[in-house]
C-alpha cells in the first residue's frame, strides 16, 4: 500500500512540475534565429577577436543581422568564408589580408650584446632590467614572448633568435603586438611590401656598432623614393602607404639593408648595395 501512495504522490508531482516547465517554455520562449547556430558552426571557433567582435558567437550574430560581412574573419579559409556568404546570401566583403610585421632584423648574428641577461627568460622580464642585454635600446630581445602569445603557431623563432611570421597562418589578431615589450610588431595590409625593419632612433656609425643591419639615417631611401613616399622622421624612414608604394627603388641604395622588400615568393629582398651578412654564429659581446 505504502509503495502505491509513494508512486502516486511522486508521479503526480512529476506531472505537475513537467506541466509547469512546458508552460514556462511556451511563455518565456525567446526567438533566436536558427541561422546563428549554423553560421557559428561554419566559423573556425578560434575566438581570437581579430574580426573586432568578442568571439565567434557574437560575430555570427552580427553576420546574421547584417552588421558585418564574412570577409572580416581572417582565420577562416577562402572556401569557408564563401560558404558563409553563400548560406546567408550576402556579399563576401573580401578585405585585404592583414598580417603582423616585425620592425627589427637584429638577430644575434648581427646585433651586439652589451651584457648577458640572466634571469626570467621572457622579453617582458628582460626589458625591465636595464632594457635587456642588447646594445640597441629598441631591438628584439629574442626570448619569444610573441611566439608564446601567438595562438595560431604563426610565429617561430629563427636560429638567430628573431621571430618570423608565417604570413599564411597569421590572422592579425594582434596578440603579438601586445606581447612585445619593445612594440616592434604592427598590423599591416599584406600589400605594404616596402618595409623598414628597424626602430633605432640613433643615427650614423653609432647604430652599426650595436647592429649591422640597423638604419643609420643616411636618407638615401627617402631621396630615391618617388614623390615624397618616404620621409625621414626621428632618424628613421617613414613610408607613407597612402601613396603609390609599389616600387623597389628606395631599397636599392640602402647600405645596411634596413629597408627591405617583402616578396611573396622570394621572402625578404634587400637592396643591391646592402652588405651581405654571412655570419651564422653569434656576434657576441661588446663592452664600451
Amino acid at each position, binding site marked *: 500500500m505504502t509503495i502505491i501512495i509513494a508512486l502516486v504522490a511522486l508521479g503526480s508531482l512529476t506531472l505537475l512540475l513537467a506541466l509547469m516547465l512546458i508552460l514556462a517554455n511556451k511563455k518565456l520562449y525567446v526567438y533566436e534565429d536558427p541561422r546563428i547556430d549554423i553560421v557559428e558552426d561554419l566559423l573556425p571557433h578560434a575566438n581570437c577577436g581579430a574580426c573586432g567582435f568578442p568571439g565567434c558567437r557574437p560575430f555570427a550574430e552580427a553576420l546574421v543581422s547584417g552588421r558585418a560581412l564574412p570577409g572580416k574573419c581572417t582565420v577562416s579559409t577562402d572556401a569557408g568564408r564563401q560558404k558563409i556568404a553563400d548560406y546567408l546570401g550576402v556579399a563576401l566583403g573580401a578585405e585585404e589580408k592583414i598580417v603582423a610585421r616585425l620592425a627589427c632584423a637584429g638577430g644575434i648574428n648581427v646585433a651586439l650584446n*652589451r*651584457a648577458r641577461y*640572466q*634571469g*626570467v627568460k*621572457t622579453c*617582458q*622580464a628582460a*626589458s*625591465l*632590467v*636595464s*632594457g*635587456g*642585454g642588447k646594445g640597441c*635600446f*629598441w631591438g628584439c630581445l629574442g626570448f619569444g614572448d610573441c611566439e608564446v602569445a601567438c595562438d595560431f603557431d604563426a610565429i617561430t623563432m629563427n636560429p638567430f633568435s628573431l621571430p618570423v611570421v608565417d604570413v599564411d597562418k597569421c590572422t592579425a589578431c594582434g596578440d603579438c603586438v601586445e606581447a612585445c615589450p619593445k612594440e616592434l610588431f604592427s598590423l599591416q595590409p599584406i600589400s605594404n611590401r616596402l618595409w623598414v625593419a628597424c626602430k633605432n*632612433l640613433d643615427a650614423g656609425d653609432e647604430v652599426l656598432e650595436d647592429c649591422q643591419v640597423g638604419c643609420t639615417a643616411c636618407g638615401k631611401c627617402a631621396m630615391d623614393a618617388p614623390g615624397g613616399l618616404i620621409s625621414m622622421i626621428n632618424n628613421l624612414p617613414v613610408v607613407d602607404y597612402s601613396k603609390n608604394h609599389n616600387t623597389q627603388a628606395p631599397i636599392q641604395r640602402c647600405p645596411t639593408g634596413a629597408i627591405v622588400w617583402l616578396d611573396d615568393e622570394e621572402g625578404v629582398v634587400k637592396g643591391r648595395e646592402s652588405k651581405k651578412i654571412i655570419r651564422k654564429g653569434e656576434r657576441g659581446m661588446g663592452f*664600451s
Partner: protein
Amino acid sequence: MQSTTLTGPLLTFRHGIHPEEYKELSSHRPIERMPFVEEYILPLSQHIGAPARPVVREGQRVRRGELIAEPAGFVSVGLHAPVDGTVTAIGLFGHPNGQMSPAIRIKADRFSSQRLTLAPPIPPEQISAADFIAAVQRAGLVGLGGAAFPAHVKFSIPEGRHIRCLMVNGCECEPFLTCDHRLMLEYADELMDGVGILQHFIRAEKIYIGIEANKPDAIAVLREKAGGGALPIEVVPLQVKYPQGAEKMMITAILGEEVPGGKLPLDVGVLVSNVGTTVALSQYFRQGLPLIERVLTVTGPAVRRPANVLVPLGAPMRAVTDFCGGISDEAARILLGGPMMGVVQKSLDVPVVKGISGILALTDAEVRDFSTYNCIRCGRCLEACPLFLNPARLGLLARKGLWEEMEAYNVLDCFECGSCSFVCPSGIPLVQSFRVGKAMIREQKARERQG
C-alpha cells in the same frame, strides 16, 4: 613604543632576512664633492608621475640651480640645472631604467665658478601650508630613499586628516650603502632643521628617528642634537634586519602597528621621510639649493676606491666611478642602488638621477650562480616575506602568466625587497617575476581605464 635602549631587545618587525652588510667598505669615508664634468644629461622623468615639462630652449644659457623644467601636473616635480652652462640638446637619451627617455643635455661652462647665485625662498615659518607644498614641488624634491616619489605629494595632508607621528628614516638596511649614514653624521644640523620645518606644518605629537643599531655613531650624534631641543624627538635604534628601512616595516617596528595592504602610512596617521629628503628640504629653504645634487655611495669589491660622493644630478655614471679610481677588471656586475633592490646596468653611459643611492660593482665572488631548480616547498620564502605574502604560490602563478590570480594573492602589496629570492635554495627568480607580474597588472588596468 616597546623599548628604546641600545642594550635591551631592539625593536623590529617579523620575518625579514640578515644579508651580509659590507658597509665597512665605505662607512668611514667622509662625503666628498665630485668635481664638475663637461656634460650633464637630465632626464625629464626622474620621479614617479608625469615627466617634467622643459622651460628652456636649445642654446639657452642656464645658471646653476635655475629651473629648466616645470612640473606637469600635481604628481610631478620641477628640474633644475646642476651647473652653469648651455643647453645643447633636448632629446632622447639613455635612462638608468633601461629606456630611452626625453632629457635635457647641458654643457657646463668651463670658466664659471659654479657658485649658487639664487636667493633662498621665503622662510617656511612665514608661509602657508599651500605655499609650502608648492615650494617643495618647485624645488624638485623627491623621496631620496630610492622610490623617487614626489615629496610634496607625501607632505600634502588631506583636510581632516591628522598626522600623529612623524618618522625620519635613517635605517639604510640595504647592504653596502652608506650614504644616509654619512648624511646623518655630517649633516646632522641640516637634518634637525629639516625635521623642524616638517614639524612646523605637520604638527605631529611625536617624532621618531629610526636608525639601525649598526650605526651607533649616528645614533649618538642625533641623540645629542635632539636632546634639549623644543621638538618631541626620539632617536630609536632598530634591529639590523633587511628590509627594516621599508617605510611600512619601520612603522611596524616602532609603533607595533601594521599599515593595511593597499593603504598608505597616512591612513594610520604616520608620515615617513628619508634622511636625505629631510636634509634637502632644509637646504632648499635655508640656502636656496634646489635638488641638483645628491650623495651616492660608490662601493663594492670591484671599485678601486669606495667612497661617498656628492654628485651633481645628470653626471654620467662613468665620471662618478672614474672619480672613485675606476672599476677593476674583476667586475662581474654593476648595479645602481643596493644589492637587494638595485637595478643591474649594461652600460655606465647613463646619468645619475634623483632616485639612485649608490653604484655597486660586484665581482664573481658575490654574484650567485643563476641556475634554477624546482621549488621544493621548503617555505623559506614565506618566512622571509615581511608582508606575509606567499612568494612560492606567486612564483608559480607568474610562471604560468596568471596575472589576475597574482593580484588576488596581493602581489600589488609587494614592494620588491627581494628577500624571497635571497633565501630561495632553488634559486628561483621570485621577485624578478613579481616585477613582471606587477607591470602586466598595471598595464592591464591602464588599458581598462582607457576603455
